[in-house]
């Protein structure tokens, strides 16, 4: 058991609060940097994808988990970032500039999508984001001159300062750097007044307003930042996949992103990355299990969505805090050993409260 005696405000404000945390995160950092030498080509490519989806998860977490604005059209931002990067890279823009442009463009689209948020809440806002998701997808499909429409758009390999990052390891480091930057940015936000303003807006808009929080401004900032992060992930995504088409950014993808974030654990940074790991590992796990299943079941195309849906429902029923919840409880068990009891995290029986009156 660890007792933290705090003697300085800095200890509360710091990122890594005590020696134990510093040790484990340092270890994680070393493991991540050493990965190209330990993992196979294929595994390294998957690790890059995990970084990319983790960044998307962070963006969605910021908007939905921390500010309470549900977004069912998030794949649209991914698409905007991806296509922007693909088109600019093809025109010869250097990587840092094209990435910046993709991020800014996504942020701008985010501000537009966030406009309904200034007037409506809850399900109405969710449907507005759904509507935007469809509209952006349609625009991408129809603007064939720019995006290639349904025939798709090939993307060159990422190249930094004239040197092509076409090996898996090089791209992995790029994704890792972006993921680390994204995580740091979100954590910084959450320990500062803006992040707290987001939480305030999620929990009680009326009292947030009485505390001086300008609702419209902060909701717009939340949308913009969330879209910017997702746009960054989109830019990386374009270079990873090397080929873009509109059907990679449909509402189904948006819904899967939401599911990913929920399974990872909504409301925590770790959750974003755990969700990303889950969504990448799921197809592998299913292919691994297929040989064990009867022929009819194994070859069915619908196996993956069924398992995905089942796992999501399972988590909501039994572990609403998601994968991070499992991790947290396991860690608490060991740190409180032998004093951990089953009631430590027991949820109080709650009655449904009307959210319309929030």
């Amino acid at each position, binding site marked *: 058991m660890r007792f933290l005696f705090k003697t300085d405000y800095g200890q509360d404000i710091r990122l890594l609060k005590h020696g134990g945390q510093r040790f484990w995160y340092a270890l994680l950092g070393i493991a991540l940097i050493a990965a190209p030498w330990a993992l196979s080509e294929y595994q390294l490519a998957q690790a890059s994808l995990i970084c990319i989806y983790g960044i998307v998860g962070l963006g969605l977490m910021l908007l939905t988990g921390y500010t309470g604005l549900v977004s069912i059209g998030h794949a649209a931002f991914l698409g905007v970032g991806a296509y922007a990067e693909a088109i600019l890279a093809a025109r010869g823009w250097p990587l840092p500039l094209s990435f910046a442009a993709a991020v800014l463009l996504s942020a701008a689209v985010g501000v537009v999508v966030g406009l309904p948020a200034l007037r409506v809440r809850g399900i109405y806002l969710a449907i507005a984001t759904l509507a935007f998701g469809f509209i952006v997808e349609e625009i991408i499909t129809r603007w064939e001159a720019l995006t290639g429409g349904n025939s798709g758009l090939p993307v060159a390999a990422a190249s930094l300062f004239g040197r092509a990052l076409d090996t898996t390891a090089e791209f992995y480091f790029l994704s890792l750097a972006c993921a680390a930057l994204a995580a740091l940015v979100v954590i910084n936000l959450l320990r500062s007044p803006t992040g*707290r303003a987001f939480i305030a807006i999620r*929990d009680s808009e009326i009292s947030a307003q009485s505390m001086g929080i300008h609702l419209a401004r902060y909701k717009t900032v939340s949308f913009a930042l969330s879209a910017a992060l997702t746009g960054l992930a989109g830019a990386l995504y374009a270079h990873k996949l090397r080929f873009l088409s509109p059907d990679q950014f449909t509402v189904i993808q948006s819904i899967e992103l939401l599911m990913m974030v929920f399974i990872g654990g909504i409301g925590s940074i770790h959750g974003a990355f755990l969700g990303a790991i889950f969504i990448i590992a799921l197809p592998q796990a299913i292919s691994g299990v297929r040989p064990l299943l009867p022929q009819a079941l194994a070859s069915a195309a619908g196996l993956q969505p069924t398992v995905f849906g089942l796992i999501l429902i399972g988590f909501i029923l039994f572990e609403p805090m998601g994968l991070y919840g499992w991790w947290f409880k396991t860690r608490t068990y060991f740190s409180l050993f032998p004093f951990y009891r089953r009631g430590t995290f027991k949820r109080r029986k709650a009655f449904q409260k009307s959210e319309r009156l929030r």
Partner: protein
Amino acid sequence: MSAALLQVDRLSVQFGGVKAVSNVGFALRQGEVLTLIGPNGAGKTTVFNLISRIYQPASGAIALDGVDLLRVAPHRVAALGVARTFQNIELFENATVLQNLLIGCHTHRATNVWQELLFLPAVRREERKLRERVEQVIDLLDLQHHRDSLVAGLPYGVRKVVELGRALAAQPRLLLLDEPSSGLNVEETDDMAFWIQDIRDDLGVTVLMVEHDMSLVSRVSDRVLAMNQGELIAQGTPAEVQAHPAVVEAYLGKAA
């Protein structure tokens, strides 16, 4: 004679056909504790909501230290030095007590989003300052034990205190307390009385309060305003108002 910090003139608002507040006017002096009393439905909380700019009055004027509040947007009221608590606690349930209090300091934020994204040294310094300020409030209200607890799990009495703390964290000039002692037991109400007196005497904050508990009102208030059905029916010291015939009639009804 202290200057009027808050000047309310002929304030009226109507919801549907009901005159919630009708021609209410009063002057709140700097450094005093003024209590609004009245039966339920008298319009007391509505007056608060008008001052906080949650509702828009149909007519009348509200001036804070000379500034016309009716031209001020709801989220700018806090910046002018007004903080309030809510009748049915409106805390941020999924945040810790500490975070709630820190959000209370929001108007004293001196950094912008870009600085915060990078967590520049300026942000770190500001965070320390905010923490110190919040710690003073925690000290005053004895909330140390609950500092890192999530509000959602706290008992009602503690939440009321956190609500008060959150309003104090903003270091306001004017504090609007909406039924601070409702739901509290005798000891907690005693504590609340001492705190309100400390707030007036030590912190120099002007307090406008809505309250039903008459003993608390008599102990703490400098002046009392009685309302009934949206109108002001009496003004004066606690003793004067409690003896006023219109007030007695409002609460107890006419003599048969």
